């Protein structure tokens, strides 16, 4: 059993952290938010570092799509408060292509890996909340109609991967078909807006958009299995991003406790604040453990094992993120409430990760519904552990 990261993973982490601290410092990042919303330079920088190739399988021009490699990348993007469409394109988008396979995967994944293509997944609808299968958008006779909301980086995407219903009732898992649509196709209307965590999203409506057999990703009517698999990869990635954000937030808070003086002493001398900072530490470490588990298990062939790890990670990270975010603001006093300090920005990102791809309650219910008596790592035999974190 070995929980250490490989040399390559450590180098990757160092390279990303160095790049972001030089080229994507807090002030630069804020300028992007209030300007164009994304930075072509940063995107090129991420591509050059190889990040866009990390989640793409080797046979499609990437570096191997390993859950642990992605954890390393996402932790650093979380720490760096990066607002570029990496998650939409390289995580969720690429995962949908990967599990959908076929011509779309072959054609588009290499373009994701080299940074020339941006993707967005149009899944959520006004009524769906956390239910990925709750879809009213229709795909009938090769024509797509419907309205999606909170499409992450939808206005920045070249291609949209849309979940529509070719059969079944609104809340059926069967009858869902995924189609790949050009964002500039006739009948596609995209309304982009800011999200409160510094990123962008869009409402996208489809009016008689042509989406024939060529547009289908994976098998018609069987899109939900692809959605589920891709969501697992995406959730594990979000868990890792949250760990990075929480770690940075905790470090900043401890530093503040050491330097901010009131009543003649650093406020870190007050036991109430000490204990709270320790509680933050414990929450982060527990969450980190399950984020690691999810990163490993997300590549497992065992569906039950994957589900268990991913639901558990989202729950544990969700709880930790709420506590850590709120405590960080509180302990920074009035300064924590300002836009100019990064503390509030980490807090907002953590809160929006909670709202993405299922909140704590959603995953708690899913986990409870799994039942089962397996141990933490999903296997009853500790000697057959595949918990080695070194890259395959």
């Amino acid at each position: 059993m070995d929980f250490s990261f490989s040399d390559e993973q450590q180098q990757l982490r160092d390279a990303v952290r160095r790049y972001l601290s030089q080229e994507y410092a807090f002030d630069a990042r804020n300028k992007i938010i209030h300007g164009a919303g994304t930075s072509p330079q940063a995107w090129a920088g991420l591509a050059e570092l190889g990040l866009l190739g990390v989640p793409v399988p080797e046979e499609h021009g990437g570096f191997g799509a390993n859950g642990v490699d992605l954890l390393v990348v996402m932790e650093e993007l979380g720490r760096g408060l990066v607002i570029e469409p990496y998650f939409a394109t390289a995580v969720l988008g690429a995962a949908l292509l990967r599990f959908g396979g076929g011509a779309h995967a072959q054609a588009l994944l290499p373009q994701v890996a080299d940074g020339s293509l941006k993707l967005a997944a149009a899944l959520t609808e006004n009524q769906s909340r956390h239910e990925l299968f709750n879809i009213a958008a229709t795909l009938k006779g090769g024509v797509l109609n419907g309205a999606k909301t909170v499409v992450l980086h939808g206005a920045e995407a070249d291609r949209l991967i849309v979940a529509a219903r070719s059969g079944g009732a609104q809340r059926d898992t069967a009858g869902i078909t995924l189609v790949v649509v050009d964002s500039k196709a006739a009948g596609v209307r995209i309304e982009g807006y800011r999200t409160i965590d510094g990123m962008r999203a869009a409402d996208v409506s489809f009016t008689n958009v042509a989406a024939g057999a060529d547009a289908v990703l994976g098998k018609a009517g069987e899109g939900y299995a692809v959605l589920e698999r891709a969501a697992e990869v995406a959730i594990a990635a979000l868990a890792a991003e949250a760990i990075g954000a929480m770690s940075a937030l905790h470090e900043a808070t401890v530093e503040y406790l050491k330097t901010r003086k009131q009543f003649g002493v650093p406020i870190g001398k007050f036991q109430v604040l000490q204990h709270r900072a320790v509680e933050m530490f414990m929450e982060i470490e527990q969450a980190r453990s399950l984020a690691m588990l999810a990163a490993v298990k997300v590549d497992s062939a065992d569906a039950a094992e994957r589900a268990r790890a991913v639901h558990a990670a989202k729950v544990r990270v969700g709880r930790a993120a709420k506590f850590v975010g709120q405590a960080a603001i509180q302990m920074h006093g009035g300064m924590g409430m300002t836009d100019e300090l990064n503390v509030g920005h980490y807090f907002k990102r953590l809160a929006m990760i909670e709202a993405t791809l299922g909140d704590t309650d959603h995953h708690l219910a899913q986990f409870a519904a799994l039942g089962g008596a397996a141990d933490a790592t999903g296997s009853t035999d500790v000697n057959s552990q595949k918990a080695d974190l070194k890259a395959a």
Partner: protein
Amino acid sequence: MDLNYSAEDRAFGAQVRAWLDANLPKDLKAKVLNHRRLAKEDFVRWHKIMAAQGWAAPNWPVEWGGTGWTPTQKHIFDEECARAGTPPILPFGVNMVAPVMLRFGNEAQKRHYLPRIYDCSDWWCQGYSEPGSGSDLASLKTRAERRGDKYIVNGQKTWTTLGQHADMIFCLVRTDPEAKKQEGISFLLMDMHAPGITVRPIRTLDEDVEVNEVFFDNVEVPVDNLIGEENKGWTYAKYLLGHERTGIAAVGRSKRELEFLKRVAGEQQVGGASLMQDIRFASKVADLEIELMALEITVLRVVSAESHGKGPGPEASLLKVKGTEIQQRLTELMVEAIGPRALPFHVERFDTPEEGEVIDELAAYYFNYRKTSIYGGSNEIQKNIMTQMILGL
């Protein structure tokens, strides 16, 4: 033990409710209920309507414009206003500088300032906190040096709520740097339009501008603007802490927000049914409702004690802690209810009221309300106060 309002008090409540129904402008009500950002004109307009009715300052002595209501009636009035969705009457003039002036000011000050506070001719803000003096307010450094018939003020205040709209500021300033820190502080009134005063907005994490830094650069202040005696300012500030504090629990407002939460949650779906039928979510709302019920009764116990002549005490700290925890929890559940729809941030919509309820801004509301456990004496400080004053530890 009698937990009921008297018939007279119930009739009073009905009278207030009817008046509000007839006189609260619909557009202001919509802005408040839909969590829109209020403009200066919105606050002023409502304050003037209340002043015309004679209700702008119920807590003041009758001879200065107060209503002569009992503590119970004042409580009922606050609750009815909150439930109706009135813009708040900002506390700085009516509930902070005025009581200090009434108790410690001279006749000339009262005759000049109180009517202008009453009818909202002067917008007041508070100059207490400084960058180096938050919880440790007594360590404040803004200096007021006496020179002849003037004070020369130099320094900086921060977190000054709505200072960008203000005509006047009341400040705690250091007049004796040699004395023990609480004993060298004075309570000084300043004209915000005086030369040497600069207001710099602070953007909060919800991207609103509700607080400011205020810089004082050799500001000349007439000695007549000193309240009471020099170096007694800390006493006057402490007087405020023990004065009329049940409003801080914001029970009426939280009841209104609870109804809003239930409505918004009722419109969300999970498992093919309303989110309010999901036992997990419904239980969380129930838990919160029960805590609010408890707080309401606790407030009534305090109000009742006041009606029977017992002065307000350190239980105000409990009301502040529990009141703010409830307010925050309400916003947490609102964000939870709407799921992914918490992400969109249509900043341009914040200033315009819209028909019906709009949920866009609920995440911003949640983020903004993290301030409530920090301001007014942080909840940690409130617990310290209760530790000392109630438990004697």
